């Protein structure tokens, strides 16, 4: 059992770390990765033979818990949702992507950034393969629509008082 955990940790630690880094600030990464593998150790007898999508799913829930903790800590005041890295080197894409719902963003990230199949993405998201496919195609359509609209619109710059 311990041997299996060690093997999973050695094989997938970097992938899980990269998954978290794509969704959270650096200061949170180590904690979330540690909690993810702690859950893996506790539930080692329930970890599927292909553990990576399962690990991503645990990391996803751990991140969500962390965000809820931050929301509680803010005690009803403004809470910056600053922790989510956005697409790099492409401002138009970043704006369009960030305007999508978290649900849409996550399925697109799993495919485009983690390189998962839709079946594996469904495992991460905890939904059926069909539901995941529908979610993916709708999210992709929404992103394409926003990009097409953004291409013909240039907002006026507006300063923010600091």
């Amino acid at each position, binding site marked *: 059992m311990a041997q299996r955990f060690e093997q999973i940790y050695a094989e997938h630690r970097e992938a899980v770390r990269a998954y978290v880094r794509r969704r959270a*600030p*650096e200061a949170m990464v180590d904690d979330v990765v540690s909690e993810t593998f702690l859950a893996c150790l506790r539930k080692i007898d329930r970890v599927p033979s292909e553990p990576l999508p399962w690990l991503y799913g645990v990391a996803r829930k751990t991140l969500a818990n962390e965000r809820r903790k931050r929301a509680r800590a803010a005690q009803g005041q403004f809470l910056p949702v600053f922790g989510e890295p956005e697409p790099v080197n492409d401002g138009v894409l970043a704006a369009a992507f960030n305007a999508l719902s978290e649900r849409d963003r996550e399925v697109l990230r799993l495919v*485009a950034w983690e390189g998962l199949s839709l079946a594996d993405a469904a495992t991460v998201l905890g939904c059926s393969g069909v539901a995941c496919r529908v979610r993916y195609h709708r999210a992709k359509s929404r992103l394409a629509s926003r990009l097409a609209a953004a291409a013909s619109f240039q907002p006026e710059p507006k300063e923010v008082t600091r």
Partner: protein
Amino acid sequence: MRTDVIKRLAAANPVPHDGPLHLPEPVRMRVSARPLVTVAVAAAALAGGGVAIAAGVGAFAAPLHQATLVVSPNALTGPDGTALSTCGLIGARADKVTAVLDSRGITIQWRFMHWGTVTAATGNGSPTAITGGRSDAVNSVPADSIVWDIVPDTTTPNSAFVFAEAPNDPTAPTLSTVNCGG
């Protein structure tokens, strides 16, 4: 077009993927004449509403509007065991923060912030907050950078993550230290 969107998103990965990506192939559908006619009519109708659409697009393409960042203070502990509140350091220049933390024997791990370009409602009665953005691990930051948060590194003794931003970053939120009682 839609597959290009996924390729474009893959190319913008903030933590590039190791090895080649196998993106799902698009499902090819037979195109009949009727949907094409529908699309043409819809496009003509939308052309007349271009102004309204552009205004709507501005909701996600515009820069930040009045986003405020309320920083919760942390206590840092140095080798001498005394606690240092971060309240007096939030909003200060990086060179000042460096001097204070160095004098306390606290090692700095710099994080330079690139704020997101989008705001969204957060609930809690807050009008806006920032979505997106990223912080990069760097060895140093310009002396005139502004420190907007300091977080103790719980895994390394006498060490803290110090988050800084460019002094005139137009996308940076307004800093508030109201949680410090000030």
